[in-house]
């Protein structure tokens, strides 16, 4: 077994990552406030992109995504093309998910924001239960379980809740992926297949390098993930669904040489849980 790489980031780097993540969530919240019945997915992603560009973002890890209605649970997805924003129109009572990944000064954020318009009791329950997964993943990673084991633990929790695993629909069935500081030189702001050109460069390089070390920068349930999380930053995105409603969060998990913690706790979903706890 090759040695684990050391944790590569200093406090300054982490602060920059946190800033990028705050910016991304801030934009998602702005779009969430703007969104209303009648808006299409394409309009929502365009608004999200405008918002990010206004905030100074020049490059994207991947293009912004928006899913409405049963598309939040990736129902009837057969080809990867279906991930791209379409003409689905938001209606009263529908859930939605926004997903964007701006790169700021080479610091990448990759976030997911779930919301609803109007009343949706299924969404309410999912949103409340999502907290369990945030806590479960951190607990398991701290115990230095392999990524595949954490994935299985999430699946077991999903079965107990009666939900199903929707991150298995993502390419590679990933629940997360490693995020590094981008140092690629390709053209900024240009994307291929939905991923930024610089992303593809970095990701391709990482895939090869990590593969040689017997690790994977992608976090799934298979053989390639039978290793403890590599120190560094991981964008973790448990995506859970019940029937036609799906919800996710996506945020950066810091895995240091001995410990692990969520990069930032001042995020919309964490604040929502705190409010609910106070109310209860």
């Amino acid at each position, binding site marked *: 077994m090759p040695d684990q790489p050391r944790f590569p980031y200093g406090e300054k780097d982490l602060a920059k990552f946190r800033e990028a993540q705050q910016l991304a969530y801030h934009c998602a919240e702005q779009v969430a406030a703007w969104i209303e019945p009648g808006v299409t997915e394409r309009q929502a992603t365009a608004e999200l992109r405008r918002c990010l560009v206004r905030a100074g973002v020049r490059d994207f890890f991947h293009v912004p995504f928006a899913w409405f209605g049963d598309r939040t649970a990736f129902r009837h997805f057969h080809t990867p093309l279906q991930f791209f924003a379409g003409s689905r129109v938001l209606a009263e009572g529908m859930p939605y998910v926004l997903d964007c990944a701006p790169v700021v000064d080479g610091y990448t954020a990759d976030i997911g924001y779930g919301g609803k318009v109007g009343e949706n*009791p*299924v969404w309410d*329950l999912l949103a409340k239960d999502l907290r369990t997964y945030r806590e479960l993943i951190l607990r398991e990673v701290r115990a230095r379980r392999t990524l595949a084991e954490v994935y299985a633990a999430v699946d*077991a929790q999903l*079965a*107990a*809740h*009666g939900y199903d695993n929707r991150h298995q629909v993502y390419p590679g069935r990933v629940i997360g992926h490693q995020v590094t500081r981008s140092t690629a030189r390709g053209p900024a702001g240009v994307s291929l297949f939905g991923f930024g050109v610089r992303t593809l460069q970095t990701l391709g390089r990482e895939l090869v390098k990590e593969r040689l070390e017997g690790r994977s920068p992608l976090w799934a349930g298979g053989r390639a993930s039978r290793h403890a999380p590599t120190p560094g930053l991981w964008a973790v995105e448990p995506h859970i669904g*019940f029937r036609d409603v799906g919800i996710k969060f996506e945020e950066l998990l810091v895995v240091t040489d001995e410990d692990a913690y969520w990069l930032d706790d001042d995020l919309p979903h964490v604040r929502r849980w705190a409010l609910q706890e106070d109310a209860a």
Partner: protein
Amino acid sequence: MTGRSNGTRRRTVDSGGLALAVYEQGDPADPTVILVHGYPDDHSVWDDVAADLAADHHVVRYDTRGSGASGVPAAREDYRLELLGQDLYAVADAVSPDRPVHVVAHDWGSVQSWEAVTTPGAYRRIASYTTMSGPCLDHMGYWIRHRLRRPTPRHLAQLLRQGAHSWYIALFQLPVLAPAAWRLGLARLWPRVLRDLEAVRTRPGHPQATLAQDAVHGIELYRANMSPRVRAPRERYTEVPVQLVTLQRDRYVCDFLSEGLERWVPRLTRRTLNATHWSALLEQGPTVAAMVREFTARDHGALRQEPSATGELVVVTGGGSGIGRATALAFADRGARVVVCDRDLPAAQRTAELCELSGAKAAAYLVDVGDGAAVDAFAERVAAEHGVPDVVVNNAGIGHSGTFLETTEEEWRRVLDVNLWGVIHGCRAFGRLMVERGTGGHLVNLASAAAYLPAKRLAAYATSKSAVFMLSDCLRAELAPHRIGVSTICPGIVNTNITRTSTFSGLDDEALAAKQAKVSKLYARRGFPPEKVAAEIVRAVRTRKPVVPVTVEAKAARLLGRLSPALLRRAARIDAG
């Protein structure tokens, strides 16, 4: 307004210029029930039912247009369903302007009440609907269409049988002849027809004195509505809770005519009564009244905001996960009230919570189905707290793998206790309740493809499931006269947590965990979701299908076992499972 001797108050209600004779009994402060009679009756066909219900209901009957003391429309088009539906609303508005009414209808009364019940927004005026022997003609149009489009042998047989039972409808289209038959003697013969064919004893005052003219006018009902509605059916849905009472010995309306009714009526409760078309009302009035009373009490005052107070009651054992949970959810989706039990109470409660998301009422109990006394106590509790269930799904089961010689006595006991005794206890406790209630029901027993697919590594498991299969076959025969159906479900390889909790003979803890993980992975790769099994269970209850192999492998094994049992015996030697 003129009074009648037995406390019946008579009044006249105007509906679009036509005078309807309305008869009221009971305290108007009680919930209002409107009874709508069929052809060729008048309101007096309800005498027994009305007398019984009047004790705690405001009972309203009326002579439908063209019959009894009501006005007779001049033209055929005045017998159109739209107008007949409006008559019901006119009566409802007159007798209970402020509160929604409960409607009970029979025969043509039922056909026309369906028109009212499937009018958009009907739930505002109609709190519940009990229907006997009278389908919605639009639903029937779709029923016929569906069968013509998919002419399976079963569908064709249904069409032919219902066609043979509907001969008189064709006769009624004949000019001159049909009215003449009534005038020239059929009306006089009617008491004998009822006595000999319908098992109705002759009684004074029935049939009504106006029978001949009612029958002649009523022919227009058929002529004005049958052909346009059945030929060009409209999509008619309703949110009103409906109780469908199937009369077992009905000569005119076959029970399978209501197959698929859930498509139009999500909040449907099915009941059966051992009666003929007319003996239900004329001989078993109190039984019908009891059914109505139970149904109106269930949803009294219920409006759209509380969609779950009615609906059939479904009990699911082992409802905390897998097929049990999916089945509970599937029934909840269809407006049923659901009771789940499991030996893992939090899991059962979770299922109940998910059921409530569909707007259903759900409750969870801690029960180990292997414990007979516990199941008896559970059944009594369910009966006391929720009523006698309409459907019981004996789903709880455990997996076990091991050859015969490897399997210990203790393991044998555990497997048989849950898989076989669990089903026995469930069928006995709930079957008895259903028989006592006397209005039918359905038991669903979860067997397995292993019930007919021998495998040397599944000695105990396959034995237990095979016993469930045979038990269900015997029980089906025994309960048939009580109109309690029994379905055996044989799922096959389904992705549930049964593999994560299965035990394996002769393995230590670590090897067991590894084996469980391996088998779970295999089942996950097969990827057959429990929701599909649940859908099959719901369908089996609806169509009263006796044996349902679910997955392709379960179907193939059943077929293979019939074509070449020797091949299956040989395959049983394979070291799998």
